[in-house]
């Protein structure tokens, strides 16, 4: 008998700014909708372990999607995208989970993302609190300046560089097989996407002046950061939480920048209580 994963993938067409995007997503489970956003330059494979969690499948409809230009979500047919350098903006990034929720008829989903996805959690809480029942920001911060640099998209430096630096963003105690897999996914991103995503990560995302406007009575905010994340540090996560009244923060000991994919078992210990609380 063949052995199948529970997650099943398909494509949905989303209209964002009058452009048709064919977006790939994988889903598993039934119940409270839970949107899962990947990190910069990567794709939804980072969530494959969570999608297979039998306990969560009984309570959550988990949807892990590939942003346009990432993974299986190829660039749109109606744009001459090859004539301008790819760049991810906050405005566009926010529209993707909103459009996806609408297309899949998700009733006020929980949103969870890491890195750019973590930053997006708090941007969604600020700009679209009514659309989500809770947001979970992994490796989120008020801002993370300095990352938008040419070295991430350089004709003489291959994707191996990105994968190798990302490997070093993980905890040395995370299982090597999963750290290697996380880096492998990084090595497969289209060359411009990582740098382009960092435009959002390091330039367009900046809550220094607005974080205290987030209203957690409208949307609960949960923040967690890996102990070994030197890009968006635990200190930065705590600083963000301090600026949002009612937000919770926890440092994930023994994890780094990719908690869901670098050590799924350890990540589960941290995320399960959060999801339990949301589901109550």
């Amino acid at each position, binding site marked *: 008998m063949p052995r199948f994963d529970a997650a099943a993938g398909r494509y949905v067409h989303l209209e964002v700014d009058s452009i048709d995007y064919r977006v790939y997503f994988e889903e598993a489970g039934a119940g409270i909708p839970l949107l899962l956003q990947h990190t910069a330059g990567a794709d939804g494979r980072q969530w494959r372990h969570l999608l297979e969690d039998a306990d969560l499948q009984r309570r959550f409809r988990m949807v892990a999607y590939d942003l346009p230009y990432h993974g299986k979500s190829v660039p749109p047919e109606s744009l001459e995208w090859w004539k301008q350098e790819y760049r991810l903006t906050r405005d566009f990034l926010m529209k993707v989970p909103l459009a996806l929720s609408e297309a899949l008829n998700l009733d006020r989903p929980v949103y969870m993302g890491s890195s750019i996805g973590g930053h997006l959690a708090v941007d969604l809480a600020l700009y679209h609190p009514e659309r989500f029942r809770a947001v979970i920001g992994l490796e989120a911060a008020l801002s993370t300046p300095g990352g938008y640099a040419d070295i991430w998209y350089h004709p003489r430096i291959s994707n191996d560089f990105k*994968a190798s630096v990302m490997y*070093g*963003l993980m905890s040395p105690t995370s299982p090597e097989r999963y750290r290697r897999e996380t880096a492998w996914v990084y090595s497969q991103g289209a060359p411009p996407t990582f740098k382009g995503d960092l435009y959002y990560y390091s330039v367009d995302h900046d809550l220094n002046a607005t974080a205290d406007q987030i209203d957690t009575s409208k949307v609960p905010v949960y923040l967690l950061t890996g102990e070994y994340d030197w890009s968006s540090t635990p200190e930065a996560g705590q600083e963000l939480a301090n600026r949002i009244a009612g937000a919770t923060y926890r440092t994930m000991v023994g994890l*780094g920048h990719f908690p869901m994919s670098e050590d799924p078992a350890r990540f589960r210990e941290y995320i399960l209580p959060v999801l339990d609380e949301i589901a109550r």
Partner: protein
Amino acid sequence: MADSTFDAVVTLAADDGEWRIAARMWNAVLRLDVDQVAHLLRIENGKLVNHTAAPASDPAATPYTVRVAATGDGWRELLAPVPRPFYQDLYGAMTRHGFTAGGDFESFFAYYPAVRRLVELLRAAQSRQGAA
């Protein structure tokens, strides 16, 4: 860090599959400064051929392709069996712990996977010597 740690890495790299792949076609002199001592690792067509050391201010410490510098304490933290946060990788140590780099950055970043592996081999060599 003792000279013998660097000498041991020359041997370790010769048998290391990951190093061989990551360093393929690389010709370089990688200079690692520990306090005021420059350790020069010569790489020819991807093979780590030898290690020499010289005072950092000595003309013998140049030329080099890529230079990474830190204090002895910094290197000890980087090479700990389970490093403290942000010492787990050279890039993080450069970002958060005062390690510096210089030279040909294109070569450095293009061969970062090799440099990262070399740090892991140094960590292994240091650990073996500590256990001996």
